[in-house]
C-alpha cells in the first residue's frame, strides 16, 4: 500500500477532503496547526487570529489506484494555493 502526505494551507482543507472523498479513499487523518516553509520561502505561521491560519497535514493510507484517481485534482489545488504531496511505501502492521 501507499502512504500519501499532503501539506497545504488549512483554508483549503474542506476542498481537499471533498476531493479525497470523491476519490473514495478508505480513510484519512488530518493534523491542523502545522507550520512550515515552502520553496518560495514564505513561512506559514500559526498566527491564527489573522484568519490566515496555518497548514494542515493530511495522511492517507491507500492503494496506488486511488492515488491515480486523485492526482490530477490534487495538483490543481496545490498549484493554485501552494502545498506539497509525497508518496511512500507502507504496509499494514
Amino acid at each position, binding site marked *: 500500500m501507499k502512504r500519501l502526505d499532503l501539506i497545504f*494551507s488549512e*483554508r483549503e482543507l474542506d476542498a481537499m477532503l471533498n476531493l479525497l472523498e470523491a476519490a473514495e479513499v478508505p480513510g484519512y487523518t488530518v493534523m491542523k*496547526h502545522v507550520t512550515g516553509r515552502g520553496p518560495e520561502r*514564505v513561512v506559514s*505561521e*500559526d*498566527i*491564527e*487570529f*489573522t*484568519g*490566515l*491560519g*496555518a497548514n494542515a497535514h493530511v495522511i492517507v493510507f491507500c492503494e496506488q489506484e486511488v492515488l491515480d484517481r486523485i492526482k490530477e485534482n490534487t495538483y*490543481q489545488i496545490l*498549484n*493554485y*494555493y*501552494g502545498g506539497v504531496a509525497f508518496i511512500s511505501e507502507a504496509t499494514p502492521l
Partner: protein
Amino acid sequence: MDTSLILQNVLTPPVLFFFLGVISVVVRSDLEIPAPLPKLFSLYLLLAIGFKGGLELQASGFGGQVIPTVGGAILMSLIIPIICFAILRLKLNVFNSAAIAAAYGSISAVTFITAESFLENQNIPFDGFMVAALALMESPAIIVGLLLVKFAGPKKRQNVKRMRWRDIIHEAMLNGSVYLLLGSLLIGFLTAAHNPGGVAKMQPFTGKLFYGAECFFLLDMGIVAAQRLPGLKKAGSFLIGFAVAMPLLNACLGVLVARALDLSPGNALLFVVLCASASYLAVPAAMRMTVPEARASYYISTTLGLTFPFNIIFGIPIYMGLVNKLIPGATY
C-alpha cells in the same frame, strides 16, 4: 502639544503591553502566547466590540448623524482602495496592489479600540454608533479589491477558476471575523431592545473585562508585529514608505470628510482612525483565498508590522492633533 499627546497615549497599559511584546522579540526573550490563545482574545474582542456597538446603536437610534456617518465610512472604504491601488501600481503588480489596497481600505478593530481608550483618557466624548461604521467598512474594501483584480488583472489567470460574484460576496460578508462582529452587533441591538436585563448580565464580560483582555491581546500583537518587521525589510523601501505615508494621507482625507459630516471631535478621531488603519484580520484571510497570486508577506508585513504599530503609537495622537486643528468646537 503633540508630543505630550503621544506620551499620554503611550503611557497606557494597552500600548505599554504592546511595547512589552515588541521588546520581547527584539531582545530574543522566549515569551510566547501559544496558538490558539491569541484567537481566543481576538474572538472575544470582536464579540465584545460588536455587542457594545449594538447596545449603543439601539440607544442612539438611526436618526441624526448615524446614517450619514456610516454612509461616509462606507464611501471611504470604497475610495481608499482605489487611491491605494493607483499608488501601489507604480511598483507592484496587479495582484499585490489589489490585495494591499483592500487591506488599507478596510479597518483594524484593535486600532479603533485603542483610539477609544485614548479618548476616554482625555475625557473626550464619542458615540457608540461608530462601531457600526467599523463593522461596515470591511466588506466593501474586500469587494473593491477583488473587482480591481477582476477588471485590472489579466483576462486569464493561471490555475484559477473564474471568480464569480457569489464567491466575492461570500468572502466579503461571511469571513469569520466580519460575521462575528456584525452578528454580535445585531445581538447587542436586539438584546438592548427586548431584554435590558440581559444587557446588565453581559456587562461584566463584555464591558469590565475588556480593557484587560485588550492588554493581553496587544501583548501578542506586539510579538507578532515585531516578528513581521524583517519581512517588511525584504519587501523593500517602497512598501515601507507606503505603510507609513498612506495612513497619514488617508487620515487627511478622513478628517476632511469628518469635517464635512460635522462630526464631534471624538467621533471625528474615530472616523479618521478607521480611514487610516489597515486590516490584518478579515482582508488577509479573504485575499489568501481569492488572490493567491498576491504575496501574503506583503500585505501582512505592511499592515501588521508597520501601519498597526505606527497608528497605535504615533498615529492616534497625530490624528487627534489634526482633528483639533480642523474640526470646529474641538477647542478645549
